[in-house]
């Protein structure tokens, strides 16, 4: 475990081995996908685990990942915690629900209702094996493998996930839900869920990605999602990260939007000991609308990092980014909001806000906007705030007979509410609201049980 002073990080000893298993599984030399995988393999080996000497990882030390001997999660058998999983399901409120337990589709927990004509929803592994349309064109083409070790590693190993392909003008009324559940055994395991969402011209859908897990043993979810939002289409994307607080959660979301499309994403991040999400949206056309919302909540020793990029490549686009963070205990938060406005992206309208609430003296947040504006006719506003619970407000509640703990809960709920209210699915909205108050009960008074 000698540590060297070179910027290139080390490569976890098991990584190439896992990729090799995956190569054998999906066939060698027989698919169009092999060159992509080979490239991914080269990239993650060249990049190595990022160290804190890299600017993008300055506040998030991922070295612990290199010190754990992870076993490949896929196929690891463990008793399935059906009850816990069922609480996360949407049942007939979803058009299709795919449940992966330790990387493998669980048919019994998954369900499928009626889909609009032509809509394709299937496990990604099936799509790779059985169809080329959409998959070949897009898989691995949008993710930032050049610089992102984790995205490259995910691509080289590539566990199963959701493949969604909407043909032109296809509209899904109900959401599609994919849940990745990790059930730990006594050895640490690592999984690399991968999703590909393609919305052709004028189509519309809502997708929910959920990540959850239980157990004392640490595990690592290294997820990646690519989304292709075609001309005039509308895609709403929710990601809820509810991993065990002993887990590592790393994820990448790369989105390419075409002209006149609308994309809305939410990152709801409540779990994991270390969580890092890289989100990049390319506004690759005219008159695009894009919303990036986030709510992160951490307690105990949790660490949560969002690294976001809104890349305005086309003119007359509008983007809004709204992130809120609530940190209790000794939790640390990191938020980086990059807004890039390219030379041709005139009449860009970009808004960004990150508001944070610290519930204890030991909690901390690093928040920074990064603006790179190369066009001259641009409206861009950004702001970050860090605050504490308002003492005046607390006294007001108490003077009306309300317990301080209850008052705190209500104030925290109200703070989170600004993001929660934007969630357009009633069931998800209720669940998220309930989790906010359950997780942070007593957070400010230090009575939390982390």
């Amino acid at each position, binding site marked *: 475990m000698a540590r060297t002073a070179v910027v290139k990080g080390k490569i976890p000893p098991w990584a190439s081995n896992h990729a090799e298993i995956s190569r054998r599984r999906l066939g060698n030399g027989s698919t169009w996908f092999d060159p992509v995988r080979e490239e991914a393999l080269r990239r993650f080996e060249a990049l190595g685990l990022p160290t804190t000497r890299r600017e993008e990882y300055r506040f998030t030390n991922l070295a612990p990942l290199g010190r754990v001997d992870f076993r490949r999660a896929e196929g690891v058998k463990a008793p399935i915690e059906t009850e816990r999983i069922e609480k996360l399901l949407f049942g007939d409120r979803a058009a299709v629900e795919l449940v992966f337990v330790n990387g493998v589709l669980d048919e019994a927990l998954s369900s499928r209702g009626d889909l609009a004509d032509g809509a394709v929803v299937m496990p990604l592994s099936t799509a790779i094996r059985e169809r080329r349309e959409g998959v070949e064109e897009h898989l691995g083409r949008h993710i930032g493998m050049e610089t992102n070790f984790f995205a490259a590693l995910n691509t080289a190993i590539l566990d199963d996930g959701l493949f969604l392909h909407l043909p032109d003008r296809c509209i899904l009324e109900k959401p599609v839900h994919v849940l990745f559940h990790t059930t730990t055994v006594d050895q640490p395991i690592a999984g690399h869920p991968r999703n590909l969402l393609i919305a052709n011209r004028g189509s519309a859908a809502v997708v929910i990605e959920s990540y959850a897990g239980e157990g004392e043993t640490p595990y690592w979810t290294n997820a990646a999602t690519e989304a292709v939002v075609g001309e005039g289409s509308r895609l709403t994307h929710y990601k809820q990260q509810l991993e065990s607080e002993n887990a590592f959660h790393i994820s990448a979301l790369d989105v390419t939007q075409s002209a006149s499309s609308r994309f809305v994403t939410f990152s709801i991040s409540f779990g994991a000991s270390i969580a890092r999400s890289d989100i990049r949206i390319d506004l690759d056309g005219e008159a695009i609308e894009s919303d990036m919302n986030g709510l992160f909540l951490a307690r105990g020793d949790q660490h949560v990092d969002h690294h976001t990029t809104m890349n305005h490549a086309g003119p007359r686009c509008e983007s809004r980014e709204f992130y809120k963070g609530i940190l209790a205990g000794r939790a640390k938060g990191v938020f980086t909001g990059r807004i890039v406005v390219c030379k041709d992206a005139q009449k860009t309208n970009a808004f960004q806000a990150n508001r944070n609430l610290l519930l204890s003296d030991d909690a901390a947040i690093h928040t920074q906007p990064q603006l790179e504006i190369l066009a001259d006719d641009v409206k861009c506003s950004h702001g970050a705030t860090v605050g504490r619970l308002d003492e005046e407000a607390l006294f007001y509640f108490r003077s009306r007979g309300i317990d301080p703990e*209850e008052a705190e809960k209500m104030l925290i709920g109200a703070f989170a509410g600004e993001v929660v209210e934007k969630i357009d699915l009633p069931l998800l909205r209720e669940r998220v609201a309930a989790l906010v108050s359950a997780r942070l009960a007593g957070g400010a008074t230090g009575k939390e049980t982390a």
Partner: protein
Amino acid sequence: MLNIKNLKVRIEGKEILKGIDLSIEAGEVHAIMGPNGSGKSTLANVLAGRAEYEITGGEILFEGKDLTVLAPEERAREGIFLAFQYPVEIPGVSTSYFLKTALNSIREHRGEVELDAFDFLALAKEKMKSLHMDEALLHRSVNEGFSGGEKKKNEVFQMAMLDPKLAILDETDSGLDIDALRIVADGVQQLRDEKRAILVVTHYQRLLDHIVPDVVHVLSGGRIVKSGDPDLAKKLEKEGYGWLLEESGAVAGGGN
């Protein structure tokens, strides 16, 4: 009901109340007047249990029991209500949710059953009607974006809902138009009965025209320098505090 004896209060090392004696019996309405900075809000807030104030001497008995050992929420449950001079805005918490939570914690303490959303709403609407207030307020975030007058009316509405034994109104009449003033005055009058005590802090005679108090006190420099009948308020309205401060030898403006 309320017995304050030689109360001394300090904030940030500065003595604000320098020995207050004040007794209010059930059924009585007392008014406190006095120059800016004389300590009226300090007294009101100390009664409600605000933590920043340090009690350095004297005692406060509420129904014979030491009030100072109780947390603010316990005082509220025992029946003390403070209408704030500056009501706090709580974005994201609706007035109905706020007040339902408050009312139910008080009811629980009194051994009464919790009100469900339906019964709460019915009660709230009834109170709103009797105060001639607009129901829309229930659905808005507590005081958020309210005009000064609306905030004061909301305090009176909360008071009516929480049904206190001792209501303290800190300048609830300031900044009100004539109609709003009537609503506030009506709110107080409706509450007035032989079981309750009311303490009104005010600068103006006009509220006292509607609510004729039993006793008027003048607080100056951290002391009650004069107590009298309602005519005292009228004299102050006409002549200001000067004559009184000369007479009593007290210093106006909080006195350092």
